[in-house]
């Protein structure tokens, strides 16, 4: 784990889980797998705090544990999973676009709580939806359960590994920690639950008419007494499937940008059909015959078979090689080259970064070197048609930032520098890794700056919150306009302006974080695709 990643993890954990969890989490990321007592000793926190922090981290799938010999349990943190916290809003928004508010809330609850049983999720989501509905209407559990089942069918949520059923009681003392197992086939199996009920509103406005003190009301609502039917079956959000969806979105929009709407629809159809059949790390999708594609096109698209064939041929002949032809049966078998697509997207990202950072002439040189693979200094000047001095300057600028690298080709065995060719080249993988590292650093900087801005104006923020609370309570008790006006004036105009500026800045910083995270996703997908090969 690089220092930049560790720093970013530390900031994320601190913001979302507090300092204690952050200390433990970062320690585990730095040092790898460790048992409980060593963690407590090395970090200098009390054993109880460590236990609490570990419970939280395990609940959120950020730390896993393993039983080693002699009954020692070791805990290991997953740095990459911590970095996913940045992407939570994107996951939730995707669920919203696909499955409306219900899906959005389900995914949000699962992400906020790490893992939950289906019944717990359904109940909570129904309650939340009921809050937002008009008075008198409630959300039925069945509807929420339906959406849950659909999410499970499309693999967006999956079961967590289960505790194996304790069959034999003669195994002596129980193991210090359960070994969780999961069967591939069962991962998306929804338990048969008959969830009957409706969402409840919070009883904020319903007081007991008799004035009976609330203490006398039975402490447990009847729900708690019933055994939970799906006890032990926990669900979590399947982040890989979301990543697959983002990747598909990126591919479709790339095709739409490069060609036209219809070809992007064709590619989208191809991706949709091979969603479940293709594993997420495959280099290309399962071959699809053009007949199948015609059948699966969305209803609105009435293009004839011939036109479709022409489009497919065009796509397959494109130099970017998004779509490839793998056979002729069934009217032509076509695949989408996923790894190639990721490579093109990463390259496009690099080009765009060079352009925005160094200018369009630098970008021209960069694209030139990309295309020609290896070029000498003189050749660069000639091909790019840029005067020697400027070309040299730009090349060195890019070289110093590691977008371009030098390749030495010795003429003589003693590698004498005067008798060696020095060629400029772009190594996409290493440039992508470098850029990814920079992205991590940028987000860490953005988060720090945002925290700094908030801390600077802490006093003002608290004051404005107080004023709003006062106004809200006064409005609830029915105060006059004049009084409200007076309270509002407690915040002076320059202070208001300061607040406005602060809000604008914080929004900008947040939006930048989201944007950088998208770049991180592309680069990480690309790097991952090269590693698996």
């Amino acid at each position: 784990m690089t220092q930049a990643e560790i720093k970013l993890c530390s900031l994320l954990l601190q913001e979302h889980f507090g300092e204690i969890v952050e200390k433990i989490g970062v320690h585990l990321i730095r040092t790898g797998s460790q048992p409980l007592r060593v963690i407590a000793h090395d970090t200098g926190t009390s054993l109880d705090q460590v236990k609490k922090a570990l419970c939280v981290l395990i609940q959120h799938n950020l730390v896993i544990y393993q039983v080693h010999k002699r009954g020692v349990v070791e805990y290991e943190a997953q740095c990459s999973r911590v970095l996913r916290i940045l992407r939570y809003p994107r996951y939730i928004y995707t669920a919203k676009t696909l499955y409306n508010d219900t899906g959005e809330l389900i995914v949000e609850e699962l992400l906020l709580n790490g893992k939950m049983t289906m019944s717990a999720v359904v109940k909570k989501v129904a309650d939340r939806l009921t809050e937002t509905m008009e008075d008198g209407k409630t959300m039925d559990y069945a509807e929420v359960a339906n959406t849950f089942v659909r999410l499970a069918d499309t693999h967006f949520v999956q079961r967590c590994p289960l505790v194996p059923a304790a069959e034999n009681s003669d195994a002596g003392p129980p193991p210090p920690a359960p070994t969780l197992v999961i069967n591939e086939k069962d991962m998306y199996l929804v338990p048969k639950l008959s969830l009957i009920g409706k969402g409840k509103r919070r009883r904020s406005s319903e007081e007991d008419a008799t004035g009976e003190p609330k203490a006398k009301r039975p402490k447990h609502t009847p729900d708690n007494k019933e055994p939970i039917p799906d006890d032990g079956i926990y669900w979590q959000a399947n982040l890989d499937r979301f990543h697959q969806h983002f990747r598909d979105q990126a591919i479709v929009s790339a095709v739409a940008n490069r060609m036209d709407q219809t070809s992007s629809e064709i590619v989208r159809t191809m991706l949709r059909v091979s969603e479940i059949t293709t594993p997420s790390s495959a280099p290309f999708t399962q071959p699809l015959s053009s007949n199948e594609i015609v059948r699966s096109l969305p209803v609105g698209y009435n293009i004839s078979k011939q036109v479709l064939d022409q489009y497919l041929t065009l796509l397959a002949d494109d130099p970017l090689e998004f779509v490839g032809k793998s056979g002729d049966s069934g009217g032509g078998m076509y695949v989408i080259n996923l790894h190639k697509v990721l490579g093109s997207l990463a390259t496009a990202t690099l080009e765009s970064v060079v352009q925005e950072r160094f200018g369009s002439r630098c970008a021209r040189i960069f694209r030139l070197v990309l295309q020609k693979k290896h070029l000498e200094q003189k050749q660069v000047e000639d091909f790019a048609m840029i005067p020697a001095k400027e070309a040299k300057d730009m090349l060195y600028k890019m070289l110093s930032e590691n977008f371009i690298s030098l390749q030495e080709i010795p003429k003589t065995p003693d590698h004498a520098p005067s008798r060696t060719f020095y060629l400029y080249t772009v190594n996409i993988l290493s440039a992508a890794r470098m850029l990814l590292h920079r992205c991590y650093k940028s987000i860490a900087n953005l988060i720090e700056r945002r925290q700094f801005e908030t801390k600077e104006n802490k006093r003002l923020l608290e004051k404005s919150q107080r004023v709003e609370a006062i106004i809200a309570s006064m409005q609830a008790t029915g105060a006059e306009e004049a009084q409200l006006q007076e309270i509002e004036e407690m915040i002076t105009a320059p202070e208001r302006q300061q607040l406005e500026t602060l809000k604008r800045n914080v929004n900008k910083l947040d939006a930048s974080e989201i944007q950088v995270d998208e770049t991180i996703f592309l680069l990480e997908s690309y790097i991952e695709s090269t590693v698996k090969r």
Partner: protein
Amino acid sequence: MASRGGGRGRGRGQLTFNMEAVGIGKGDALPPPTLQPSPLFPPLEFRPVPLPSGEEGEYVLALKQELRGAMRQLPYFIRPAVPKRDVERYSDKYQMSGPIDNAIDWNPDWRRLPRELKIRVRKLQKERTTILLPRRPPKTTEDKEETIQKLETLEKKEEEVTSEEDEEKEEEEEKEEEEEEEYDEEEHEEETDYIMSYFDNGEDFGGDSDDNMDEAIY
């Protein structure tokens, strides 16, 4: 540039490689040497591209800020223990400083976690009694008879209504042996004329969670 450093010994200005090959012609002015680390905020040559705006961007932004605020309120956000103040104050009795240090606010499924992570929470009940002790007559046993008798006597004296609440509560706690503290502060603790939530020593007024706020939390 290892060659440049190596050439220093032999003769100044002599390099082992051909400068023209790298692109520095004879007599060209070299850039000035760097004597200090690069500035913290170097001036930008080109303005950055504007951020994506529009419905989607705004929605995701609002989601992000809400999420941040929401996660701070969840029980998973562990706050470090409030440091003990030097002198015991009167208001301490009326303030709940959060969960007693060693308990967790939420209930994980203990079957899924290693056994060593489970925190024994018997302390909870003991601590509870110490807090309540000053206000109550000696602890009663779980004997229902006694409790009922006591209830009757207590009913006559209005001041003692509080103890009844506490005893009932304690009984419930001991019977169920649960680790949760569903501690409804305002109703259960003391049924004095002063309802708990109205007591406020002004220290953290306004910093609480928001029921009605639609704004994002920073």
